[in-house]
């Protein structure tokens, strides 16, 4: 990996998220400083300049996400102020031009306006992502109340009316398409129809977490060492259209990511749980494990948080790739196989093994040796990047024979003098 550019001082406080637009020509960044900035790439020299910036929330902003350009230039932001906001860039009108707002640059021909504020979350909103465009203008959010919320834009040109179409407690989500779907989203962790022992214990942990948060009251957001900091809340949509609306989501410190099916006709349910809790991982190092038959030990080690999940664009593959990064210091690449459709099964019912989603791990890497904070795929699902507390960004690639390998890394730490560009870990590949 090579450095190609630098924005010297992007924000006045730590940057919390950055997101490229559809074309990669603009970069939206948000920060603890409560502001959003939109950077524009000058393709002639590779530099980034601020196109617009504004104070967007009343607390730290956690994530920004761009909508598909066929819906216009639309951005959503989530914040520790428990809100999600939808922003749209519109051309300046004649009257605007005379009184350009102070934040934008003088040459700007457009401005960003707030179109909607979604206030349903009962905790800090940790992640948002617009759905793939073929499902319409939809937005998913996940917050520290462990709820996944799906919003649907009802009036597209105006972007002002968003209906919450789903609100589910990820931890108490019924799993499997055959499970009874009479649970409501309001189910508390203790009431959940527990399907596996470890999910019960995991949700108890989160329950304890929540109680602790309640005791801390409003101070949850301030100060270090609070329990929220040890959790992880993440989501990622399935980019494929074929299997309907699917989203992966992880909550708290459960060590699991759930693959959730959203259908208009019924409550959301988990089609699969990607369980990388220690009891699972410590057992063997074989590259392929089936998670369907997960049986947890009663004395399972402490679970950890999945900090980041990324669903690769499927690009016509017969399987899906989902990457997770966790506080256990591991990057995992899951291969998720959709069920074989019943009509392809020569008339058999969908209940057999072929009719279920299944996952196996095709790559598991502990190179970071410390908590992994972020995993992300490129647009073709061929390169995975991960960032960890070892101060390194690492790349992973699939090579012949379906073997995933490290493909370079970059360190944020100052290099030893004159050794700057010598690759100390090049032989890590072997």
């Amino acid at each position, binding site marked *: 990996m090579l*450095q190609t550019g630098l924005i010297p001082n*992007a924000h006045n406080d730590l940057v919390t998220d950055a*997101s490229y637009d559809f*074309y990669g020509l603009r970069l939206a960044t948000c920060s603890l400083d409560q502001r959003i900035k939109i950077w524009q790439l000058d393709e002639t020299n590779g530099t980034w300049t601020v196109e617009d910036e504004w104070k967007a929330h009343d607390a730290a902003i956690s994530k920004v996400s761009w909508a598909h350009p066929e819906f*216009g230039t639309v951005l959503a932001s989530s914040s520790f102020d428990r809100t999600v906001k939808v922003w749209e860039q519109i051309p300046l009108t004649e009257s605007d031009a005379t009184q350009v707002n102070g934040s934008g640059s003088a040459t700007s021909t457009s401005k960003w306006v707030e179109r909607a504020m979604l206030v349903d979350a009962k905790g800090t909103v940790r992640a948002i992502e617009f759905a793939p465009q073929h499902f319409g203008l939809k937005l998913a959010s996940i917050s520290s109340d462990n709820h996944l919320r799906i919003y649907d834009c009802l009036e597209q040109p105006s972007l002002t009316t968003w209906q919450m179409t789903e609100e589910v407690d990820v931890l108490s989500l019924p799993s499997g398409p055959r499970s009874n779907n009479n649970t409501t989203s309001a189910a508390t962790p203790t009431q959940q129809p527990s399907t596996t022992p470890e999910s019960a214990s995991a949700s108890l942990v989160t329950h304890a977490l929540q109680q602790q948060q309640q005791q801390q009251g409003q101070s949850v*957001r301030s100060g270090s060492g609070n329990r929220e900091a040890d959790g992880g809340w993440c989501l990622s949509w399935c980019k494929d259209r074929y299997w309907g609306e699917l989203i992966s989501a992880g909550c708290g410190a459960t060590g699991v990511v759930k693959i959730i099916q959203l259908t208009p006709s019924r409550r959301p349910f988990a089609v699969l749980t990607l369980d990388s809790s220690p009891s699972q991982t410590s057992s063997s190092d074989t590259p392929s494990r089936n998670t369907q038959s997960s049986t947890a030990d009663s004395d399972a080690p402490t679970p950890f948080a999945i900090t980041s999940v990324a669903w690769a664009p499927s690009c016509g593959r017969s399987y899906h790739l989902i990457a997770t990064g966790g506080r256990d210091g591991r990057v995992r690449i899951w291969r998720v196989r959709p069920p074989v459709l019943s009509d392809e099964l020569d008339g058999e019912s969908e209940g057999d093994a072929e009719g279920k989603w299944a996952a196996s791990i095709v790559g598991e890497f502990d190179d970071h040796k410390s908590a992994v904070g972020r995993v992300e795929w490129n647009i073709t699902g061929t390169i995975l990047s991960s960032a960890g507390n070892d101060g390194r960004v690492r790349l992973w690639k699939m090579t012949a024979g379906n073997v995933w390998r490290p493909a370079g890394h970059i360190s944020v730490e100052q290099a030893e003098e004159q050794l700057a560009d010598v690759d100390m870990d090049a032989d890590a590949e072997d």
Partner: protein
Amino acid sequence: MAPTASSNLRPPLVERGGLEKFIKSGKTLATTISPRDDSIAVYATTLTHSRSPGSSEEHPIYTTSPHLAPSSERRTFVTDTSVIFAAVRNLVQVAREEGVQLSDTVDGMKAMTKLALDYVNHCKECCIYAAQETTRHEPLQFDADHYRKLYTCFSLFTVLYMPESGLDDAPVGDEVMDWLNTHYIEPSTEDGDNLSSLDRPWEDETFWPYLTRATLRGLTKASAFFLDVLSQHPSPDLQRLSQLLIPLLTNHPRLHQFAAERDFAVASRRWKDKVKSLRLELDRVPEEDREDGFENWWERFSDIVSILEGRGENVKRIVSELGGDWKEVCAVWGVFIDPRIRRSDLPDLIEDLLDELPPDPTSLEDVIHSSLFLGRPSRTLTQAAELDIWLAAHLADIMEPLQLIEVEPDDSGHPLRDHYVLSYAEYLRSDPSLWRLTVDYMSSCGDIGKAMADQVLVRVPLRLRRHKGSQDAGEDIAQIHSGQLAGVLKEVAETCFEYKREEVRRTICRIAAQTFMQEKEFGLAVSYCASAEDWSGLGHVVDRVLEEYIAEGPEPFARLVANVAPVLHSLRSQHSAHGIFLYRLMFAVRFAEFHQRRVNGDLQEAAFDLVAMFREDLAPRSWWGVLLSDAVELLQHSQGMLFTNNDAVLFLHKLQEIDTRCAQGGQEDYLTVLARVMKGAGEKQILQRLQVIRLVLARYVARCGVIGVGGRSTQGIMY
């Protein structure tokens, strides 16, 4: 090029040894990957999300990239060789369509070999270009040595795996020697020039090594020249022997001199007999005559004879002493030791040779050569990918149709070839302006590759917005705005067509429509929606168009919609089922025409438009109030009666329906647009407005009755 290359950020985000402190202060790293070129933004972020006020720290964002984008000579190389790639794909495609294995057809193989040699020549040319010492516009991205490596590897591949038609089972020695002599020139020309300028060259220490090497390499002329010089040597034995050796060298039978291999074999055997008799002559020289005062000429001469005799052990020793490697031994083997060695015999030979003379593990080039000789194509690809993914991709692309590598997809769904071609395409993505090539390479990789190409294609920036002040690409934009396909949009559309990516084309049209809608180019927005068959999108455009009336008033509205009418016309002639949205568009256009005529003073036509919108049920009921309100001016026109009695009665009916429905709580459906047109008027004012309309209508009907204008029949004055 090595994919695992790594580095450090500059300026460093964390001082050396400061990482622990960095993490302990609640910070960590985060990244995001650009869809443009896979570049990765890296920044410090927070674990705790608590603010750190008053800190003077900087908060930079770094951009990094897995590859350097091809520039300078590399870009030319990449672009030029893509043309050959396209030709190879075409060849493979034709064979596939004809249902034949390319490797089974003489013409197919001939064509493929020609294309492979084209690759070889491009490597060569690029190597020559890079080696030139000229001032360059841009510094070289890769040095001449890099292209030399590509050249040697690719040409060795063609020598070993792409024999001329009918020669696949012919002896290969001469070809390997030619390859070696082309790429690894020994002995050096300088040494030769130097020696030939001396009176007694045998006194020079380079003389015997030069002569031996020239013999090893089959450089008959050079060997003969210096053997002839030995006629001046003080030793009469050597004078005699060298004269005996010259004809042996110049008459060394080589395969290409013979029409049939049998003749070659016979000639080789006879020649070997002559070499034996030379050896006998040599052995007769007494021990004491074997020195010339400088060194033991006899041993040197004996070495040369042993090469001709084809003594394997001697050759290995001699080559090693001269600084040669296993490749040279192999080439000599095929010329002197086993002149009838086949391609299929090489792997066994090389395996033995490499035990004694292993390849240089630090030289990828040497390692690739050894894999090629050993007949291990898939291992060659792994190593080639480390040297340069270009090499691996283009070798794999040829290896597959030659059935040298597994054709079936592996566990990941990709055949081996596709792994490398996709990996190369990924490298090309580092320069977004190479999107055409990226798409070409990806599209050659089955359905998965095509789907990946879709992702690239759909993200090619369309650059449709008119930038104030910027001149570049202005022409294309102007053309697009005049309704033609031009610039990037045209190229992308053509690429979609070429690869039959209709879904991508539609997405691009939808994005274009959205952009045009933002720019208030409603005509273009409508036609791009139609092209995408995006009827709900068309509905959004109509909504936005009507919004213009509400926001800006009738005249700007009429002006903006003027260019929608021709599009509407062509849409209606298509007769496809776009129902409701087309209807709404028709309303918008008619409504705009009405205002245009009204503004132009063409009041009678305007009046017809108004009536027609009701009669043809074009007007949505939310707009009835607006239309009736707009009718007031025409109803009160002093110059004449513009409506028939029936028209007026129709208006009254509509007005009545509004009243009735509103009384039933339907204001939402009937009055919202009118309220917005009246700029936030309250309910009372709106109802007042309706009263005014009613009064005007009542008066008009009365006038009709009194004056008899338009009569009581349905026939209006104009009918």
